[in-house]
């Protein structure tokens, strides 16, 4: 029998890896009586909850609630954080997400006492600081978008979309007596667009794209009629291409008494260079967590301010910001308002960050836009010989390739994306927009240096070669992460959506 030498790596496997790679759930680390936070002593007479509330209302204890110490909380979440990719680590080439640098001064100012501590119902005369922030941000956003007015209330882009459609609805009801029935949405649109149209009470009709991936203007002329309330368009489109005929599309809609809504998700290609208000947009939303650098934080919070032309101003949601004799106030009375879209006003903390970003750039915001467009075009140039480019139109801040060439070896966009992880990058946007089968949507943003772009290009070129010479390597990627590809089918068939304490042994 041959005795094998035990290598150091094997010993790790047998002994077990340090817990930081295998951190369990916080509940699994709990032990009765441990606590992480102590309250100052009570300076008023204590009351017995049972007496104060009555037996019907009192609660004993929360079974399974965490019981850990402060250091365990810190270690737990610090360890978890090390399993995440982040902008602070490297590029996210995610198309349409605009994953740019989140400036730290924004975090600092949002946390200032007197900014973070204010209650939305406190007297207006004690809120002038907050109100000035709202006013200045609104002024900056109207200037950047070329619109007339707007609201900072919506909590996210999707809520901005809903607000915009509700404004259109109110306008049509008020001026034409009925809201009309249909919203036109290009087949390249983000999923929130049709989902929102339905919540606003409209039917969705698809507008096809032409062979260049642009809105088919000829078809548009045919389908716009008195039933159409609006068209929702993203510009640049989700292909990263400026809609050449946007002004004509606006004209067609306006001729029929309909309005043009613009999804502002791709504003990073336009800020300082062109203004939606100039090319016929009546109402649009902005994604502050995209163009305006507020942090994604793992999925939110965001903010989705809506900008409007004067014709929609009467219907803006309450509260509205008013100025009188140098004093600002939030006013809840507005005769034709669509009402409130969320309690207490907007995501103020997010608005503060967006303003800090805008103040850092000033009119120089144009440079950020130019760098974003330059980066996307540079990457396009360096990859267009190895990846299929479905549409030859000029790219703005993002470029869409497809997996058509790699598909021949059975390697698809998802495989390539997963292999990109092994090279130290977050994947690009896969399988969107829907009009490009096997889409690979890449948006580097202005935050990427030439070096980072070159690294990305190198990685992608290397994967293209692997797809040709060693497709299995790509198809089973990623190989270097904490977990491999996860069983999503099992997760959906038998969902386990919470931790449960083990049943006590009898």
């Amino acid at each position, binding site marked *: 029998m041959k005795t094998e030498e035990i290598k150091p790596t094997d010993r790790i496997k047998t002994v077990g890896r340090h817990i930081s790679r295998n951190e369990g759930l916080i509940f699994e680390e709990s032990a009765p009586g441990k606590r992480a936070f102590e309250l100052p002593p009570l300076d008023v007479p204590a009351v017995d909850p049972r007496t104060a509330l009555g037996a019907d209302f009192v609660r004993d204890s929360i079974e399974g609630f965490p019981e850990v110490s402060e250091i365990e909380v810190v270690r737990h979440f610090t360890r978890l954080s090390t399993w995440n990719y982040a902008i602070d680590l490297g590029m996210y080439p995610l198309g349409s997400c605009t994953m740019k640098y989140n400036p730290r001064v924004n975090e600092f100012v949002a946390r200032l006492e007197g900014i973070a501590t204010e209650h939305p119902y406190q007297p207006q005369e004690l809120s002038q600081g907050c109100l000035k922030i709202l006013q200045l941000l609104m002024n900056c956003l109207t200037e950047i978008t070329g619109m007339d007015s707007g609201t900072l209330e919506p909590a996210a882009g999707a809520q901005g979309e809903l607000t915009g459609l509700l404004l259109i609805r109110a306008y049509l009801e008020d001026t034409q007596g009925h809201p009309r029935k249909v919203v036109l949405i290009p087949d390249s649109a983000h999923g929130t667009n049709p989902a929102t149209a339905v*919540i606003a009470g409209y039917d969705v009709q698809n507008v096809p794209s032409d062979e260049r991936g642009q809105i088919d203007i000829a078809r548009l002329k045919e389908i716009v009629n008195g039933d159409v309330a609006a068209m929702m368009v993203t510009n640049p489109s989700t292909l990263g291409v400026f809609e050449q005929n946007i002004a004509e599309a606006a004209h067609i809609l306006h001729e029929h008494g309909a309005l043009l809504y613009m999804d502002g998700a791709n504003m990073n290609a336009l800020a300082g260079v*062109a203004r939606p208000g*100039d090319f016929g947009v009546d109402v649009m939303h902005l994604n502050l967590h995209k163009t305006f650098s507020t*942090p994604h934080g793992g999925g939110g919070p965001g903010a989705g301010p809506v900008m409007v032309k004067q014709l929609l101003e009467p219907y803006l949601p309450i509260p509205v910001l008013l100025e009188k004799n140098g004093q600002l106030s939030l006013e809840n009375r507005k005769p034709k308002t669509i009402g409130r879209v969320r309690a207490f006003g907007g995501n103020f903390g997010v608005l503060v960050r967006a303003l800090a970003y805008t103040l850092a750039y000033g009119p120089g915001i144009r440079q950020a836009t130019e760098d974003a467009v330059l980066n996307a075009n540079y990457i396009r140039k360096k990859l267009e010989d190895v990846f299929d480019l479905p549409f030859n139109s000029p790219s703005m801040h993002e470029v869409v390739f497809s997996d058509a060439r790699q598909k021949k070896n059975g390697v698809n966009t998802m495989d390539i994306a997963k292999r990109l992880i092994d090279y130290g990058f977050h994947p690009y946007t896969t399988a969107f927009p829907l009009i490009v089968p096997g889409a690979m949507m890449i948006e580097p943003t202005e935050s990427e240096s030439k070096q980072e772009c070159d690294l990305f290009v190198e990685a992608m070129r290397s994967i293209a070669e692997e797809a040709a010479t060693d497709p299995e390597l790509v198809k089973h990627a990623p190989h270097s992460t904490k977990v491999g590809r996860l069983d999503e089918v099992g997760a959906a068939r038998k*969902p386990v959506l919470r931790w449960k304490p083990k049943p006590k042994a009898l």
Partner: protein
Amino acid sequence: MRYLPKSTSERREMLDAVGVPSIETLFESIPEQFRLKAPLNLPAAMSEQEIIEYFRARSSENSVGYTSFLGAGVYNHLRSVVTDALIQRGEFLTSYTPYQAEISQGTLQAIFEFQTLMCQLTGMEVANASMWDGSTATTEAVLMAERLTGRHRVVVARSLHPEYRQVLDTYTRNLGLRIDEIGFTGSGQVDATRLENALTSETAAVVVQSPNFFGVLEQMPSLAALAHAKGALLVVSISEGVSLGAVRPPAEADIVAMEGQSFGLAPSYGGPYAGVIATRDKFVRQMPGRLAGETVDGNGKRGYVLTLATREQHIRREKATSNICTNQALCALAVNIHLCLLGKEGLKELAAQNLAKARFALDALEKIRGVRRAFTGPFFNEFVVEFPRSVKMINAELLKHKIIGPLPVGSYFSELTKRGLFCVTETMSRAEIERMAAAIRDILSKPI
């Protein structure tokens, strides 16, 4: 510019690589008449220091130095510095939605823990990864009940936060949903008799808040029984989650829509907060919002993924359960960390301190002649007090003492003038409570 990692020569190199003479060429796809010829009229670019000074100046124009007795959906509670230290880690702060599970296990596991905590708090079986806030969560819960029952009428308690109700109205106005309102009795609780009469076979849901806008706790078992008897669902909205440290959870509810702001989120002049929807397992496929589920990888290693995504907009598009995409992830993480810090004992103690402080304040107020509590039902840390004169006038005087007084309830309920809604949490010192009571006694002792 300090956020842009390119030198002039690098830009030149890249333009050459692209094969264009200047950056303007790359904008030629924009029709000429729309290309801006001049810089935007924005405030001049600021250095980091100037930005800080700008916001410092604004912060000094707000309410620093004042003591506030406001609640009404936004609560002052102690927050640990540990939470901010953790959520400011770049791997949390600057990470994306965890669609690529292999490199987002930190976020996904934290969401899974958050979902568990929300279930434990509310007594429900499953919870989502967050909604925008309590008001939109309540609205989405109503729409969810509509989908589940196929019915189109809803009975809403008048004691639901008026702004929550306004949001519900805005959303449902165009969807053919009919809303009937039910008032409250002298206890401040929902009028159960009127409720029973208002329920029909067309009622999708009964919507109540507990503690309600007046701070009063609702009787869940009897409300649930009434709703269920007619095949309607009980939707419970909770805006002061700390109450769940002392008050039994609404286990009889079908859907709970909670606001998480009380758990470690700064008031921040209205947001960002973190709503959540929690419900029973059998309703999960109609629940909006993201869900993290437990699974394994190819080596049998435990991991987490976003799951049941076919409910959501990016797949279902116009048939989605909601249009929500971006949620409140970082806020939910802060809530998660805060609750782990508080823990079982800490939350219990925190709730007990709130009960004590609120009762101490009420006692102090009721010692003033002409001042008494407006409702009789059990309460947590908010209560309505009736005064012999206008609350607005009292508050105007209180400001001179650097005290922000109770919310005038008459602004929302025209029959409830001269009544103020007080919120007293663990953050309010005994000395400040006594100072407030003394100031009010003083104000009321003077002629109008």
